[in-house]
């Protein structure tokens, strides 16, 4: 296609701007075009021309390991994957009816969900800018559907506000914004703001506050059709004789502040939590299944790695077949190790001392998820809530409503807890039955009439007790990043680590994939130089 010679290409234009104004100008221009800030995904790696017979052993069949295997096999390497579990996918996982899960300590749960229902114990939502993951979902035929991240009609509950009564998100947010707008308007009138705004700017700001906060002509946030159009009506607009709407009462502002709604609003502004978000059709585990369709033939399951050694001639990995008890040593030229650091830290190895120190320096976060199957979708039928989350300050953290099969009859699974920090530890320390009871007791605050009545069965996963990871995700801080991160990701002779722990997108699938691409790109370069 000839787009005309007179028009410079985007690249030429950027180059010209770069010459004139330097990189800052280029960056600003790129942002204007909508490119720069979106992703670190460089596109799938173009590795090719592996040396004849060169081999790689990949430890772990999670997303990082399977992506490494897929791309390295394509590049011509002989690849083998060792996996501790009897399934692929790692933390990308869904529990369905008929599944059995035994946690550390021995408690076993038999999941009783109806056909098609599931709990995503780990990852459950995908930001629209996690382009690596989206790329491979498309490439591997994993169908995605919207994840309802933000629902104005769901609830916010704080034990310290409104006497413990939950409020609709929209009412709290509208009353917060309305009051802030009114206060700021007063401050402007009293010249209480030390600003450099011109009179014209001030007029614009006041007009913005009026429309943003739904203030009246006197710049006051009051009960009326204006405020109700944000916060919800007492009687919504209708048709015919009695169609006129009735406005709703405002909430007391001191209680609005106590509810912590500003933090909830800020949560949705976080770039990882902005809409649009996605989920795979049929459960998050479909992504792992999609990857496994590509590399399943390379995987040895039930392989518990006990030793990881390298020398000048290659890498040797000793593993025990946990089903049959046999011990084997596998050899390869190179190794991509995606074993979580919690576990790798306990595997005998001859990695450099600094590397071992880095592996031992990164603790893992905790989290607990609980799925509750309900007889019917009372949140939809009785409360007009379709997907999204109701937040609480109790230890369950939130409940989250299913994002698919809206309006359907029959049982549905809602997420009855997503707990981390102190509450997550306490729930994890309970027996599975105690966790369900806690989830029912605490979640009832949102749906007191229906919650226990409609409950059928439940399942929980406490990540501390998941045998193959013993925690949720790597938890870095500024000090450990400074001291250990580069050591952790550096390739040591023949071994390179990959996974969410080796990224700055920690605890996201995107992080594990970006880490994997970076690791195998360096491995391939090293292999060609060797």
């Amino acid at each position: 296609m000839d787009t005309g010679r007179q028009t410079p290409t985007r690249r030429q234009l950027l180059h010209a701007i770069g010459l004139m104004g330097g990189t800052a100008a280029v960056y600003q221009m790129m942002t204007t075009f909508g490119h720069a800030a979106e992703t670190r995904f460089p596109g799938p790696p173009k590795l090719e021309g592996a040396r004849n017979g060169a081999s790689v052993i990949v430890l772990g069949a999670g997303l990082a390991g399977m992506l490494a295997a897929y791309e390295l096999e394509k590049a011509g390497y002989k690849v083998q994957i060792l996996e501790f579990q009897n399934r692929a996918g790692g933390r990308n996982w869904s529990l369905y009816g008929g599944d059995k899960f035994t946690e550390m300590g021995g408690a076993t749960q038999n999941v009783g969900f109806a056909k098609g229902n599931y709990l995503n114990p780990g990852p459950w939502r995908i930001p629209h800018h996690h382009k690596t993951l989206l790329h491979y979902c498309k490439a591997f035929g994993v169908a995605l559907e919207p994840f309802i991240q933000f629902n104005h009609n769901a609830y916010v509950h704080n034990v310290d506000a409104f006497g413990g009564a939950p409020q609709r998100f929209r009412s709290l947010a509208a009353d917060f914004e309305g009051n802030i707008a009114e206060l700021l308007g007063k401050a402007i009138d009293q010249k209480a703001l030390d600003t450099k705004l011109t009179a014209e700017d001030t007029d614009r700001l006041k007009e913005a506050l009026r429309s943003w906060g739904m203030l009246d002509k006197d710049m006051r946030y009051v009960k009326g059709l204006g405020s109700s159009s944000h916060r919800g009506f007492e009687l919504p607009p209708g048709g015919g004789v009695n169609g006129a709407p009735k406005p709703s009462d405002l909430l007391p502002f001191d209680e609005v502040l106590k509810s912590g709604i500003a933090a909830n609003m800020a949560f949705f502004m976080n770039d990882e939590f902005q809409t649009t978000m996605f989920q795979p059709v049929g459960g998050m585990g479909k992504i792992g299944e999609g990857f496994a369709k590509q590399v399943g033939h390379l995987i040895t399951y039930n392989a518990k790695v006990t030793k990881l050694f390298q020398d000048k001639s290659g890498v040797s990995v000793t593993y025990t077949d946990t089903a049959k008890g046999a011990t084997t040593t596998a050899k390869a030229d190179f190794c991509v190790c995606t074993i979580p650091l919690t576990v790798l830290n306990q595997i005998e190895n001859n990695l450099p001392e600094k590397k071992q120190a880095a592996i031992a320096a990164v603790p893992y976060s905790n989290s607990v998820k609980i799925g509750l199957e309900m007889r019917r979708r009372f949140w939809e039928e009785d409360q007009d809530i379709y997907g999204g989350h109701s937040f609480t300050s109790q230890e369950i953290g939130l409940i989250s409503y299913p994002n698919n099969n809206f309006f359907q009859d029959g049982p549905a699974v809602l997420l009855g807890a997503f707990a981390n920090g102190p509450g997550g530890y306490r729930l994890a320390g309970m027996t599975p039955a105690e966790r369900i009871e806690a989830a029912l007791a605490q979640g009832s605050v949102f749906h007191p009439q229906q919650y226990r009545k409609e409950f059928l069965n439940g399942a929980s996963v406490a990540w501390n007790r998941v045998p193959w990871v013993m925690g949720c995700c790597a938890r870095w801080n500024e000090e450990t990043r400074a001291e250990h991160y580069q050591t952790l990701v550096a390739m040591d002779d023949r071994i390179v680590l990959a996974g969410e722990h080796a990224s700055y997108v920690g605890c996201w699938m995107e992080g594990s994939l970006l880490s994997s691409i970076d690791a195998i790109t360096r491995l391939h370069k090293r292999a060609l130089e060797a």
Partner: protein
Amino acid sequence: MLKRPLLIAAALCALATPALADEPGPGGSKPPVARTGEEIYRTYCQACHMADAKGAVGAGSFPALANNPRLGTTGYAAYVIANGRGGMPWFKDMLSKEQAQALIGYLRTHFGNNYKEPVTAADVEAFGQRPSSRF
């Protein structure tokens, strides 16, 4: 009088920390406040070390605290709980000094451990810190 502004500042910092993981959201996951050694153990520790403190085995293992001679000194337990070890996170910003003292005292006198000398305030100096920023 200095204390109040500091507390408010700490709260603001906590709120302003950007989320860098897929997490529940703000304000959640608060258990009832644990005060006695046993309550603190049940709330924070048995998730990994198990209700009987015997630890557990998976792809790796969680060590037993029951019959553990390392609890013979107060300093070792205080150091590990404050700073974490391997996959175990640091608890110096999750537990107060009083909670740490109660917990370590409890561990040293239960689960087959029998170390009577008291845990001092100096042993738990490291606890009660502000949460560290993550990145």
